[in-house]
């Protein structure tokens, strides 16, 4: 093997490797596109739905938790209302059924006090104050006889409103108490007097303790100043400032999120207790209420993660098998095309062989005649041969042999270039060679073939053998299209830096508009039984494969022009 051909082999194998790399990267890109697209299409709704569900579950759970707190708060508020109403009703009953004089009687009041304590419980003391604010009678643990309350605030209030409920204070035996006072008109004197009772808050404490609360939650009363009125579990001591700010005034039960003075977040449910200084408060830790939510959230996240993993696995599997299928189909198609291309090549070689046979026949006939003449001269004339005449015979034979060898070389050159390879191709000699194949036919049919070779004929990077086939196909079509004494013009020009164009124009029959759409389709032929219908479709395939383009313009009766545009540099 010569160094030159070795270099050629290395170059061509390198080229093949490049092509295979590009081939593989094309399928990788396809695979990537398929994976990304399917993943996007299938995962996006899943993720969106999961997050929408998240949000909705969260909202639902939040609302449920709020309504739970709200219900609890409302129940307790109603309890407080009922409780205070009961106390008030008890006091009102006393003032309505006992006369002022009886109530001012210490002994009678003592009896009433004992009855009430037995019936209602929680009463610590009971006293009557006249309209001037003087303590008229008193039953209880303090010594309050003769005390005057006229200047005290609660006295003013009960005079105006008819009822008064006090804040909680530490009273007898340091137990928290509060006061309820009611005003009653004295029908005898026309003035009024006040029945005032102190009530133990223990009954409230026990009610709040009985509420079914989590250990971390709390329920208690505060007054409008934010001072704790009952004993909370976790949030300070009775009569100390509550660690949350006093919530805004509202006639309804409210639920909101608050931050304690120590910076902890709490869900607060509260309700202002009517006709009293009390606000009922429920405090819950958000963590407790969110516990279910967190559990659900982690379940959903797991489900989401599992789904994503499964979907991605299925996508990867299906994309891989899809791309593999496409690759298999492509390679099958390529093989089929290669087979068809080979058939076409063989067909064009067959067509050429007929032309070649004809071209070789003439010189052979001349050789035959000259050899025959030589024999005749020797056998018929039987006289010494004239050297000049002999020389003429020899020259005729040599000339004919040269003609034969030109034809055989041309044929060999064509057949040799079956393997695709990229090389520098000089287009002008290539086209001239192609025209050479049909020279005789054109001559006999008196077809004028003009090839305009530009001053600086372009050289391109392409596949010589394939280009030869392209031009041979188009040129033989042109020959078939023109009548005898027709005309075929071939032009070669550089369109721009990167493109050259070869136009083969004939003045033949032209192609109808209906046919022109189909001429590059396989098995489309207007030649009837003579054509395979593959020539132009293969030509089209080859030109595309070489990175070029083929256009056709035609008018029936005026002829056709095929323009092959080729890149100056071949792209892999």
């Amino acid at each position: 093997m010569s160094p030159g051909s070795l270099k050629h082999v290395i170059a061509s194998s390198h080229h093949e490797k490049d092509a295979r790399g590009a081939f593989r990267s094309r399928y990788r890109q396809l695979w990537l596109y398929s994976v990304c697209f399917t993943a996007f299409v299938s995962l996006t709704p899943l993720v969106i739905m999961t997050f929408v569900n998240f949000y909705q579950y969260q909202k639902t759970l939040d609302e449920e938790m709020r309504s739970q707190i709200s219900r609890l708060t409302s129940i307790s508020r109603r309890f407080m209302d009922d409780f205070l109403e009961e106390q008030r009703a008890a006091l009102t009953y006393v003032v309505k059924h006992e006369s002022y004089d009886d109530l001012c009687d210490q002994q009678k009041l003592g009896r009433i006090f004992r009855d009430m304590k037995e019936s209602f419980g929680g009463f610590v003391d009971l006293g009557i104050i006249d309209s001037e604010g003087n303590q008229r009678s008193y039953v209880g643990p303090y010594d309050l006889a003769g005390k005057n309350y006229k200047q005290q605030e609660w006295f003013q209030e009960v005079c105006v409103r008819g009822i008064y409920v006090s804040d909680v204070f530490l009273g007898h035996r340091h137990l928290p108490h509060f006061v309820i006072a009611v005003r009653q008109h004295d029908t005898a004197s026309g003035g009024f007097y006040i029945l005032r009772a102190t009530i133990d808050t223990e009954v409230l404490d026990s009610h709040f303790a009985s509420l079914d609360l989590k250990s971390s939650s709390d329920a208690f009363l505060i007054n409008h100043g934010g001072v704790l009125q009952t004993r909370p579990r976790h949030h300070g001591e009775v009569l100390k400032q509550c660690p949350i700010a006093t919530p805004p005034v509202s006639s309804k039960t409210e639920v909101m999120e608050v931050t304690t003075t120590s910076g902890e977040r709490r869900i607060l449910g509260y309700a202002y207790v009517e006709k009293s200084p009390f606000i009922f408060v429920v405090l819950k830790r958000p963590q407790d209420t969110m516990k279910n939510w967190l559990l659900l959230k982690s379940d959903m996240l797991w489900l989401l993660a599992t789904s994503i993993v499964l979907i991605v696995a299925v996508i990867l599997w299906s994309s891989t098998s899809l791309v593999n299928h496409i690759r298999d189909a492509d390679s099958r198609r390529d093989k089929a095309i290669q087979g068809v291309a080979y058939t076409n090549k063989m067909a064009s070689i067959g067509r050429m062989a007929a032309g070649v046979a004809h071209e070789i026949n003439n010189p052979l006939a001349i050789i035959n005649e000259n050899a025959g003449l030589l024999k005749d001269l020797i056998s018929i004339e039987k006289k010494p041969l004239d050297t000049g005449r002999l020389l003429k015979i020899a020259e005729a034979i040599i000339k004919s042999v040269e003609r034969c060898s030109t034809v055989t070389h041309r044929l060999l050159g064509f057949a040799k270039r079956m393997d695709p390879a990229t090389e520098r191709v000089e287009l002008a000699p290539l086209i001239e060679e192609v025209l050479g194949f049909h020279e005789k036919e054109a001559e006999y049919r008196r077809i004028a073939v003009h090839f305009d070779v530009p001053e600086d004929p372009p050289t391109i990077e392409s596949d010589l053998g394939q280009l030869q086939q392209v031009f041979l196909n188009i040129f033989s079509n042109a020959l078939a299209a023109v009548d005898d004494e027709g005309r075929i013009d071939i032009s070669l020009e550089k369109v721009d830096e990167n493109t050259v164009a070869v136009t083969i124009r004939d003045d033949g029959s032209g192609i109808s508009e209906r046919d022109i759409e189909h001429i590059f389709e396989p098995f489309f032929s207007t030649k009837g039984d003579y054509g395979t219908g593959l020539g132009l479709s293969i030509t089209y395939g080859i030109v595309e494969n070489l990175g070029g383009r083929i256009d056709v313009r035609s008018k029936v009766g005026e002829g056709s022009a095929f323009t092959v545009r080729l890149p100056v540099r071949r792209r892999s």
Partner: protein
Amino acid sequence: MGRLRILIVDDEEDLAFTMAERLILRGFRCEAMTNGIDALKALSEEHFDVLVLDVKMPGIDGLQMMTEIRQTHPDLPVILITGHGSAADAERGMRAGAFDYIMKPIDIERVIQMIHASTGAKKDEKP
């Protein structure tokens, strides 16, 4: 009957003249032309007994010549020379009234046989 006068028309100059020379060596009177126009001119001016005509020629080809000759010289025998694989041309020529055809490369003895047959002379009779 004098020596037969043959006109050979073939665009291959070497072929036409060598063939003519060989026929002359065999006692024929022979003219060689390389195109149809010259040949038609010669036919109109001189007498020929047989016309040996190549089918494929630039300008006026053999078949076109045949149609012309049939009108001017309806009795002139024409022997066609065709290339290999041009059976279709030969067939058309025969239909147009050619006496016979021979394929290239040419066997000169066969041509002479045809000439004799066409002129009605006996094969072994001297021309």
